């Protein structure tokens, strides 16, 4: 199944500017507020921002969501009131209602950034005022600065920077695993790393707002997600060193990811083999169920989350799919170098987007499956082009060995579904005796 590793520089990257059909970084609040359970995310923005978050999250019936928007009004913009006073008042109201909040995260938006509202200053002031109960952080999730998952990147970077300002907990971190993954995935990784004999492993973000363990030049970190440029820079500024690895998608990716960690910490090959053998076998077995659905299928990936290069690598190497184009909103060359090197020659890589032109390119290529956002998915389907909506990769447990089959299933499902629905179901199975 896994082809021999052919290192190949893919062709020139297509760089495009035009209409971007992507989410802004605010969207990351939807999974972050579930991950960090005592945090509250307060967007400082406009009605559009509030509308975005609730349109994306509104189908979840929360009696009390852990996110909200402080909507700027005419009088804020006209300078009739001091926006900092206004924000303080609204935050006080919020905390009165939600005394259980232990971390308040102010999230910057396009409007707040265009008028240059100083959210850093506001966060510092509020943090002082409340004596860090709750502690107050801020980051930018604006569309002008961030695309979708980059919101999480900025949030994690803010958590790391917080250590410089307020110090760390008493714990020491030898290994930081950065990037939010589903709880079940985190637990599996923790078990595997424990079995490899690693101690003082820290997941970023943690499930609560506790201060980060101490990160210093003895700390190594590994990225579990490919969209963490700012987070990596923040960790490096504290002296931590990045472990270069593939991202843990599929059997191959997960093994390479764990191997890079194991090698860094001098785990013996025998132990590594012993720990990973059974889960590797399971991952290969689970993935095999779906290979027939995806083998030779031509796949086109639109930019969305920066996970596209890793997904393409997995599709190509473990499911034998043919990749036509890998779009990514942003390519962190250094972090995804390993992923890109494993793509077969001839795959187009595109960074940024001009959506109309990309749609033309996609249609002309007549793909069997298009990985794209929800704004494009149904219109493609209506034209007979099978799609897999990409936001699901951010919301589904897909990393690690035990999820390798689930990840394959996500891609296979729309193709299987198409075959099922297209087949003639009108004939009744009941036959008269």
């Amino acid at each position, binding site marked *: 199944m896994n082809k021999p590793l052919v290192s190949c520089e893919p062709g020139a990257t297509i760089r495009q500017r035009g209409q971007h059909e992507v989410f802004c970084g605010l969207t990351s609040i939807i999974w972050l507020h579930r991950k960090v359970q005592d945090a509250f995310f307060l967007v400082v923005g406009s009605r559009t921002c509030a509308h975005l978050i609730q349109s994306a999250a509104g189908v979840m019936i929360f*009696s009390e969501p852990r996110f*909200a*928007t402080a909507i700027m009004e005419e009088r804020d913009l006209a300078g009739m009131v001091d926006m900092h006073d206004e924000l303080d008042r609204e935050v006080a109201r919020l905390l009165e209602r939600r005394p259980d909040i232990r971390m308040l995260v102010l999230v910057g938006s396009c409007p707040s950034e265009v*008028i240059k509202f100083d959210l850093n200053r506001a966060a510092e002031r509020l943090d002082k005022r409340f004596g860090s109960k709750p502690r107050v952080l801020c980051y930018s999730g604006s*569309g002008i600065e961030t695309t979708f998952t980059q919101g999480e990147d900025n949030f994690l970077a803010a958590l790391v920077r917080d250590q410089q300002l307020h110090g760390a907990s008493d714990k020491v971190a030898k290994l930081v695993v950065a990037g939010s993954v589903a709880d079940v995935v985190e637990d599996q990784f923790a078990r595997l790393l424990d079995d490899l004999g690693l101690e003082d492993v820290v997941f970023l973000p943690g499930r609560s707002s506790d201060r980060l363990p101490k990160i210093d030049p003895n700390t190594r970190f590994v990225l579990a997600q490919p969209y963490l440029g700012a987070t990596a820079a923040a960790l490096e500024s504290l002296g931590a060193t990045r472990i270069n690895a593939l991202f843990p998608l599929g059997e191959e990716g997960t093994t390479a990811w764990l191997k890079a960690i194991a090698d860094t910490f001098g785990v013996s090959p025998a132990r590594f083999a012993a720990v990973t053998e059974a889960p590797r076998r399971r991952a290969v077995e689970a993935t095999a169920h779906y290979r027939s659905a995806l083998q030779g299928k031509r796949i086109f990936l639109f930019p969305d989350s920066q996970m596209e290069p890793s997904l393409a690598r997995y599709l190509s190497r473990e499911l034998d799919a043919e990749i036509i184009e890998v779009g990514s909103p942003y390519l962190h060359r250094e972090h995804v170098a390993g992923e890109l090197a494993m793509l077969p020659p001839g795959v187009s890589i595109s960074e940024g987007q001009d959506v109309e032109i990309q749609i033309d390119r996609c249609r002309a290529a007549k793909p069997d499956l298009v990985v794209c956002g929800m*704004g494009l998915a149904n*219109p493609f389907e209506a034209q007979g082009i099978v799609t897999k909506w990409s936001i699901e990769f951010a919301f589904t447990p897909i990393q690690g060995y035990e999820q390798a089959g689930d990840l394959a299933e996500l891609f296979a499902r729309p193709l299987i579904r198409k075959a099922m629905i297209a087949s003639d179901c009108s004939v009744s199975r009941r036959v008269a005796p």
Partner: protein
Amino acid sequence: MKLTMWTYEGPPHVGAMRIAASMKGVHYVLHAPQGDTYADLLFTMIERRTSRPPVTYTTFQARDLAGSTADVFKTACRDAAERFKPDALLVGASCTAELLQDDPAGLARTLDVGIPVVPLELPSYQKKENWGAAETFYRLVRNFTGGLERPTEIAPNSCNILGPSALGFRNRDDVTEIRRLLTANGIDVRVVAPLGATVADLARLPQAAFNIVLYPEIGDSAARYLKKTFGMPFISTIPIGVGATHTFLREVRALAGLPEENPVGEAEDRATWYARSVDSNYLTNKRVFVFGDATHAIAAARIAHRELGFKVCGLGTYMREFARDVREAAEEFGVEALISDDHLDVEQAIIEARPELVLGTQMERHIAKRLRVPCAVISSPVHVQDFPARYSPQMGFEGANVIFDSWVHPLMMGLEEHLLQMFRDDFEFNDQAASSHLPAHAPEEPVRAAETVVVAEAPSVADSVWTSDAERELRKIPFFVRGKARRNTEIFAARKGIRPITVETLYDAKAHFAR
């Protein structure tokens, strides 16, 4: 600044998108930052449209701010006109672009794109979605009827339908239902707009004898303009409910010069008989709280009271523009209208009113779920399940049938209600278990502690103390009226200075207030 957990309406440019997406041949160039394309999902996912909404976004980013975002806008305009070849171009700004002050109107004028350009001024920090839709529709109507003459010969039975739009609550089927009813009653429906209309259709608006405004929040300003400019009368009785449908048809027939007689189509009305049948007896005086857009809220309150025999214990809207109409309607039911777009206010009002049924929007579903009160959706904002595949109008006689079913469905059925009262301690059939016909609606576990802020049982009247016997007795009252009973008893006890509240007090209060 205003703290907002949920917003009932989107920004005004979403209203403009709804108009563009409703019509054919109209393209909207929206000056907006990267990310604002989320609004496409409202159409492709919630409404499940098969095509992308006709909107081109400039999606500028931070690095563009250093250069000329005006140039980005001009390029987007030219490209959109060339690629989509629309009959008309709407141009405008979203909230962030409004701060940049690039003036899309002025820029578009300088661009000679060879087609009519209609600039939109939508103040994002003051106005909201419905206003944006109404304003956009009005601008389009004005633009494409401007300078036209009314024909001298106009058939008196010809009319237009104004207001239905993309992302409108059940607008698709309402139009089908009302058009069918009107046609059956001898009315000639000429143009339906904005839903399905072209700009050429808009130019035909003055050729009909009168207008019918089905959704005033979107069609009202255009109808007023057509009346002022062309002298076209309009009807804005909303045919939601059997009574309102009769009134509506009577008014339309009168305006069309048709003789007064029973309308064609009333044979399809089953709701009236269903509500009269003895099975519906237990619906009498069920307390219902109504909230939504002004049109649907007022219509729902009237149906609830006059056609289903409920007791309206609260009525409100999030649309300040129509506050007066809702206040007037609320007077009919002896309640004070709630005019608020703050869902926390609505939640508080619902807790205080202690309804047995909530008729509201998607947000009231959240509130009702938490308070464990049955709920049905009557108005936008709604989620994907309220853009159903099946025919489900709210208007006309079939609409009344749909309403009867969907409002009664969440209530506990009569026999079950009786048995619950008689045998309270059944191990599988008790008031902690949800109605047996509603498995999907049963809250599986209590609300998580971390998310509980406002207690489901509203704070008791200060200083009221219940004896444990009285508390036990209170629990024997069915849960959907228990809150009301507690409150009444406490008010009664406070008035009479009774402390503590005993079983006696409970029954004294019951006798005092009746049900």
